[in-house]
């Protein structure tokens, strides 16, 4: 019924690492929640259900806890119910998560032959005898990745995460998405055996697209929590890049490279859990003080909220993959496994993988831009609203939560070898190969597995940076230089909150460069003085980005459904003669298609009969346009 192998234990560990600091934060946050009992019941239910999923030993338990996880998180989104957009977001989340659940259910019904209580080993036998393994793979991908928020099933994240209370967003983004990654490991290794090469390529492509799309939409966001939610899409994409490379290498019988890539994916899952939870906590503290999610109303918060600001800075550096942080190390590993593609023989694959390298590198660059924007606009400069002016540091419990989570970030940075050992145990269980000693011959330096691979020494880098910074600081102190505080030089004008750069302005060049993707709605209104175009006293500029996938995939399908239902509606209001005509047409089409598809096929009759069908439908059914 339950399973406690290394993979499960690892993910239990991940969940506990994410949950424990979150508990502190959550209790600090509790006084601001109106429906306390509702919140607490679902909060603990959510945690237990996540633990339940990762230790589930059969399909029934897995599905039970999976559904419980969905329902409790859905109720948690509905905690602050006053807001109308919350209800909409929760409905969207409910729909998306059950869309995934249907596929998981189908998957399990096939691999268990209907008996949901058999264990994974028996499922593996049934799955290996199933005639269409790729169908099973697609079910698993649709079911799990709609939960993980991978493009194009990511649209619920930027709605659901901002609507939930901040500790819940931290849990959902940091931990719940990783449960889906656990599912991917469990399903692919324990249920679906002999993979095809194309599966890995599909995962790789999904990862590359998600990482780019996530970070690009994050850049255009002004809602701080929606921005972080978009970054979750990006980071899940990065995890999938590692995972996809692992699958490709394993299909090509390169087990050491594969183990390295899977370890990279696991490491990035841990890192994303740590820094994303911390970022959501920081965003929650800011939101709690300023009462708004709009970044344009922040500014200068570092002076009032130093602990929030510096923990947020640590997480920002880490998520931007800058050395020597943990985020850099896992992204480095994923780069190394992409570079391992040099030892693939298949030339077309070999030529395609540099595009993933390109996607990952561009993602890294844009993530830096994005987190400069978030940190700079939120915490630096002058306050842009009165609430930001009167903000002060959050309560001790919330601070404890943030500090504990930043300790998790730091521990991932300092004790990389220890975590690697854990991941090595898991890949050892899955692939029957241990590469820890190749990655860490000693604890100081971390080696890549691929030929011509690189080496990085996180601890030496950290020590070097600290020593150099301190020595420059010592020189500065020994020189005993005077300093004086004065106004910012703004070419003779006064500096005010309105003259500094806004988040919209900061992302301006990038938004303009990627106009084809953003397709922004720009509104620029100004009150000109005496008809001079360049002289105006009051101006407002607003820009709204319309997400491409939501527009093309979701809204257009809604539009088409509406159109179809209009015809169905018309169908229901025909007069009797039309019904008779319809029956006649259906009869005709059945006869014709029997003749064409079953009896004998010829293009001439097909053409002739189609013409007859079209005329008959036009004349009898549609009739004249009124």
């Amino acid at each position: 019924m339950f399973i406690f192998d290394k993979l499960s234990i690892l993910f239990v560990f991940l969940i506990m690492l994410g949950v424990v600091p979150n508990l502190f934060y959550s209790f600090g946050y509790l006084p601001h929640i109106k429906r306390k009992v509702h919140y607490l019941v679902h909060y603990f239910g959510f945690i237990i259900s996540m633990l339940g999923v990762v230790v589930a030993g059969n399909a029934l338990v897995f599905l039970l806890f999976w559904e419980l996880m969905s329902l409790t998180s859905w109720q948690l989104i509905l905690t602050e119910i006053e807001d109308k957009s919350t209800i909409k977001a929760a409905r969207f989340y409910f729909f998306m998560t059950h869309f995934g659940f249907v596929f998981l259910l189908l998957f399990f019904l096939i691999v268990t032959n209907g008996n949901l209580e058999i264990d994974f080993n028996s499922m593996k036998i049934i799955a290996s005898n199933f005639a269409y393994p790729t169908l099973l793979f697609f079910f698993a991908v649709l079911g799990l990745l709609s939960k993980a928020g991978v493009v194009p099933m990511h649209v619920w994240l930027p709605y659901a995460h901002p609507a939930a209370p901040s500790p819940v967003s931290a849990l959902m983004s940091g931990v719940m998405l990783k449960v889906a990654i656990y599912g991917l490991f469990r399903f692919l290794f324990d249920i679906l055996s002999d993979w095809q090469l194309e599966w890995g390529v599909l995962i790789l492509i999904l990862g590359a697209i998600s990482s780019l799309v996530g970070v690009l939409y994050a850049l255009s966001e002004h809602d701080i929590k929606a921005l972080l939610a978009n970054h979750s899409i990006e980071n899940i994409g990065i995890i999938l890049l590692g995972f996809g490379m692992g699958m490709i290498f394993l299909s090509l019988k390169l087990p050491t490279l594969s183990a390295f890539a899977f370890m990279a994916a696991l490491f990035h899952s841990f890192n994303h859990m740590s820094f994303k939870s911390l970022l959501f906590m920081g965003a929650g503290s800011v939101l709690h003080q300023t009462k708004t999610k709009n970044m344009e109303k922040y500014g200068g918060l570092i002076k009032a909220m130093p602990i929030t600001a510096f923990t947020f800075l640590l997480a920002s550096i880490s998520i931007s993959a800058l050395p020597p942080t943990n985020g850099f190390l896992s992204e480095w590993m994923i780069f190394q496994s992409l570079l391992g593609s040099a030892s693939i023989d298949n030339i077309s694959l070999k030529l395609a993988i540099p595009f993933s390298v390109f996607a990952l590198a561009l993602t890294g660059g844009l993530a830096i831009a994005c987190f400069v924007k978030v940190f700079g606009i939120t915490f630096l400069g002058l306050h842009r609203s009165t609430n930001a002016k009167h903000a002060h540091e959050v309560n001790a419990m919330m601070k404890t939560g943030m500090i504990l989570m930043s300790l998790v970030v730091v521990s991932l940075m300092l004790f990389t070898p220890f975590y690697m050992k854990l991941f090595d145990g898991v890949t050892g269980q899955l692939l029957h190969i241990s590469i820890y000693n190749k990655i860490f011959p000693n604890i100081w330096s971390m080696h890549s597995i691929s030929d011509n691979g690189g080496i990085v020494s996180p601890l030496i880098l950290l020590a070097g940076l600290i020593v150099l910074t301190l020595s420059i600081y010592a020189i500065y102190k020994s020189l005993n230089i005077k300093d004086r505080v004065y106004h910012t030089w703004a070419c003779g004008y006064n500096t005010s909150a309105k003259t500094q750069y806004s988040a919209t302005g900061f992302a301006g060049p990038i938004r303009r460069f990627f106009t084809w993707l953003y397709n922004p709605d720009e509104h620029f209104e100004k009150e000109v003085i005496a008809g001079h175009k360049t002289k105006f006293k009051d101006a407002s500029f607003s820009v709204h980005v319309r997400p491409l996938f939501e527009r093309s995939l979701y809204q257009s399908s809604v539009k088409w459904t509406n159109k179809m239902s209009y015809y169905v509606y018309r169908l229901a209001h025909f007069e009797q003669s039309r019904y008779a005509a319809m029956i006649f047409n259906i009869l005709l089409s059945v006869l014709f298609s029997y003749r064409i598809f079953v009896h004998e096929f010829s293009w001439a009759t097909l053409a002739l009969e189609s013409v007859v069908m079209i005329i008959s439908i036009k004349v009898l059914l549609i009739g004249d346009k009124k």
Partner: protein
Amino acid sequence: MILYIFSILLLIFLAPLMPSFMKMVKMYLLYKKPISIFQGYRDFSKLLSKEIIISKETSAITRIAPFLVLSPLLLTLFFLPPIVSGEYYVSFVDAFTITGLISLSTFFLMLLGLDSASSFGGLGSSREAFISALVEPAMILTLFSVSMMAKNLGIGQAGINLSLHFPSSHIASFIFAGISFFILLIAENGRIPVDNPETHLELTMVHEAMILDLSGFYLLLIESAGSIKFIIFASIFVSLFVPFGLNLPIVSAILVFIAKLFIVAIAVALLEVNIAKLRLFKVPNLLGIAIVFAFLSLITFYVLGA
């Protein structure tokens, strides 16, 4: 080990000379009376004696960030390829880490721009974020390609491998990677087609806009970070793409290395005199060329093996 320390000190010594040298060459070419090559040192000593003026709108970041802009770049100096054969070099840090360290320095520079609440700072940060986001993929792809020709991703080992076995069979992809890296050298150091280091015009400035509010020692830190960044890129360029002269006797090897650095500086200066600064939204085209050359380099290496 002595040579290693000597080479680091040499690079630190040469760093302030490079911008002044480039300016000197440019002024000479424009028929102006050239400045002294030691102008950089004079500027630094002047900045040392001045007091620091800190804007009252700023936060702790302004007091921390200048140190963190300089220290990753100083750390990178320790990881550069050797300039003399037999010299100690760092083998435990690879090219990706170096690009990461450079990005770390840029990250704090951009925060610095936003800290003073001036519209110039934000303007500079925003532009720098845009440019450096597009530099990143070209950089990684170029390094990927070079690492395959040099058979190592570590910059030090790659420099030695390339000088021992010049990749004459892969000359096409080698040259493509070289072109790409040279464009990146210009873009990352804010030289003319991308940024003009000499003006303070809001239409054009990128790097200068971010540091407009710094003075005294903090400005010194940022300025020296700028010159050290140039020397890092120049020495990586000459060690990887002009890998000659490493095996000469010590003194001549060092002289050849310095000469190569100055040749790179002359090339950049010549380019600056002959090209107008690009509009900000034309810069992606230039960086796009770098990305395309990096891809070409990889593809020719894989497909043609040339």
